[in-house]
């Protein structure tokens, strides 16, 4: 029941794929599945209805009857529809001609406003700007303290006053002007959209600092109510964009679609973790691709670019090709991959990964153990595990704080793995069959 949207579509489309033409009943069945998948993904039922009817209107028409491959047509259409529904123009920040550019953060309690404010500050710094953070959440205990810590991590000054949030916000913008900051980001307290008093307060803040950008922060885990609160915030503050947080979890984030549709404002940024670096622009095509099971290769590539050491990765690639991928390389590469974040996250971005694997119980703690074992081996042992006898095994196990059995299992599994790599034409000693031959023949030729 709780497969993700990607899986659902994959399942649906594997049924249509290859079929020449769809009957109306089949279309109905497909649409029912799409509806179910979207609802389980927390897309608002009203939005789902509209979305599904749109797809139907464009699916059952004459066009489809005439089209050569109705299945392809449906896939393309749903994909495009999703991309468009999620997308719109990408955010291009237009800096105020008279600095500072004022940014206001708003949203429900606990969605990630303060964290996103600090992330945004860091993002602006990377754009070559010089931001100031303003803590105008004077309600939640230690909220300003939290912002100060995060501001410290981002190397951005945090301004705050005691007492009145409106006055604090105004003074913050003043301060930015005074000390020559070109961007000022105002964090506000979380509030319920049905709380008249607090909505008035944030309206007042907005009215007195006239933000250039107002972002509504929403949590990817949010359910059907997302559209209700988003609409109220939009009416009160006339939003410019949405920041979608906690995408590092496994919530399907269907609310992104409904909120995007209902308030008609673009999703500008995504937050993908608790650390300040876990922040990115929103790409509707990527999101749609991800939803449709095509993986998120672009994000993966960017992440790889950012975090991986090119030399080490290339060395690994060469070793793989040359069939000399040993435990030493494995350790090195594993440490690389780890830098990209939790395995599960990386995995979720890869296309074509079967859901059994995507949902496999990956115990990141086990990784640490594997690392410890390999680290306890000598270089020679790593490149030639066959030399590991009983006493070496004992030494390694002691070093890694584990049992000899665990060491044995790892060695055996790595061997199996090399076998598999060999069958894929990469790595493992016997894959070197060809290379020595080639080497020999080369030598022969040279002679």
């Amino acid at each position, binding site marked *: 029941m709780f497969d993700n949207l990607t899986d659902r579509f994959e399942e649906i489309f594997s049924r249509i794929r290859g079929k020449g033409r769809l009957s109306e009943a089949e279309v109905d069945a497909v649409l029912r599945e799409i509806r179910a998948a979207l*609802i*389980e993904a*927390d897309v608002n039922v*009203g*939005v789902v209805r*509209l*979305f599904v009817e749109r797809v139907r209107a464009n699916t059952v028409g004459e066009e489809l009857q005439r089209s050569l491959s109705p299945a392809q047509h449906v896939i393309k*259409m749903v*994909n*495009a529809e999703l*991309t*468009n*529904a999620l997308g719109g123009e990408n955010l291009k920040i237009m800096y105020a001609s008279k600095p500072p550019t004022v940014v206001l953060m708003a949203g429900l*309690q*606990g969605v990630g406003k303060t964290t996103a404010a600090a992330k945004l500050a860091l993002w602006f710094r990377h754009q070559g700007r010089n931001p100031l953070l303003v803590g105008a959440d004077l309600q*939640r*205990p*230690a909220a300003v*303290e*939290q912002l100060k*810590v995060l501001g410290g*991590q981002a190397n951005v000054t945090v301004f705050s006053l005691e007492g009145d949030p409106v006055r604090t916000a105004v003074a913050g913008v003043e301060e930015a002007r005074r000390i020559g900051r070109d961007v000022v980001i105002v964090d506000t307290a979380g509030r319920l959209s049905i709380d008249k008093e607090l909505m008035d307060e944030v309206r007042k803040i907005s009215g007195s600092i006239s933000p250039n950008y107002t972002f509504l922060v929403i949590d990817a*885990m949010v*359910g*059907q*109510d997302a559209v209700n*609160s988003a609409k109220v915030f939009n009416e009160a503050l006339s939003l410019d964009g949405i920041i979608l947080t*906690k995408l*590092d*979890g496994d*919530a399907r984030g*269907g609310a992104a679609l409904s909120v*995007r*549709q*209902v*308030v*008609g404002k673009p999703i500008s940024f995504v937050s993908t973790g*608790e650390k300040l670096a876990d922040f990115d622009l929103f790409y509707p095509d990527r999101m749609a691709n991800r939803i449709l099971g095509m993986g998120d*290769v672009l994000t993966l*590539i960017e992440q790889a*670019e950012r975090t991986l050491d090119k030399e080490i990765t290339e060395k690994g690639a060469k070793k793989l090709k040359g069939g000399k991928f040993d435990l030493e390389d494995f350790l090195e*590469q*594993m440490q*690389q*991959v780890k830098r*990209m974040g939790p395995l599960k996250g990386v*995995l979720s971005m*890869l*296309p074509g990964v079967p859901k059994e*694997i995507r949902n496999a*119980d*990956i115990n*990141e*703690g*086990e*990784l640490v153990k*594997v690392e410890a074992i390999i680290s306890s081996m000598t270089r020679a042992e790593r490149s030639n595990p066959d030399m590991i006898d009983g006493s070496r095994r004992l030494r390694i196990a002691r070093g890694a704080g584990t049992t000899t059995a665990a060491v044995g299992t790892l060695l055996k*599994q790595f061997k199996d793995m090399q076998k*598999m*790599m060999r069958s894929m034409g990469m790595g493992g000693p016997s894959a070197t069959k060809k290379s020595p031959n080639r080497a020999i023949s080369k030598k022969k030729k040279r002679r």
Partner: protein
Amino acid sequence: MTTEFIVVIAVLLVVIASTIYLVSKRGRSTLSIPAKTAGGSTVVSSSAAVAPTPDVVATELLIPPGDLKKGVRRAGLSFGRLFGNILGSDGSNQKVWDELEETLLLSDLGLELSTRVIEGAKKALEASGQRDGSAMANAVRMELRGLFVEGERDLEYAGESPTVWLVVGVNGVGKTTSIGKLSAMAAADGKKVVLAAGDTFRAAAADQLQMWAERTGADIVRSVPGADPSSVVYDSIQKAAARGFDMVIADTAGRLHTKSNLMDELRKLRRTAEKEPAHLMEVLLVLDATTGQNGLVQAREFAKAAQITGVILTKLDGSAKGGIALAAEAELGVPIKLVGIGEKVNDLIVFSPDEFLDALLEVEPQYGLSDEDLGAN
């Protein structure tokens, strides 16, 4: 995409695949991974071709936001109105059942459970031979009522001190605030409380808890940022035992259930919280009422890692209905014990299924689409 990156990705795939193979608990059943991911790496290069050509169908299918805004109107689907409709309906109740289903869905009850409730209500109605509106209302309510577990919803104190309550959940749901309220509740029961600042990760989390300790007259044990949360909990228990406190309420850092290292940390925390002289009486999962279907996954995973004894459903003072907490109770048998209805110290009430249902069924105006809206497409 440059070839260079295809190679990089291929290496990644292999390494990831191998790593998973090595650490996966499924052992041999994952043998097929590398082959599959190798296939995946070819998909990498061809995915550009698979990707939609946006200008083919895109423009013609775009839902202009404004259009949708008009389309999505307040449908005012209150049960009262629903059943009013039924009384005047022509005998085919399907449309009403559909609206009813939509109402349940809007509460975040989930598709499967909503369908089950409605099917159940239909059957019960059929059996009773009745078909009027109030009978229908009753049938649905009875179905929903049957989803709750029986029994006590009060929090438990141990006979011997110190009692420990552990509070867990994903990020931002209201754990720390709820602990502040629990602390006040326990104080009102005459208990001397130590709060354990087990969130050593989030910026200023301990400061936040400290303010709640001050507000509620509790003691606090805190450590430095990044410290081992288990040791904080351990120290609190030691302190409580040595100084004659009745109980420890332990805060924890918000964690997504998908992060296995953090879930492991939680397992360890739990073990610490049940060691002598502690009496771990409650492990409370905090669920935010705005949470959608992911809430059920959260409940399942936290139940697995920390054997939760109950749920605190927060932010019910908002417009969200918290239907997912009912889904979690129905599936896992973990009772919703307390409800957060605000940010103040007294905004915590004992959960009552009937009141919850009243609120759930007295659905405020929600977004839905009328038939005209759909016909207008």
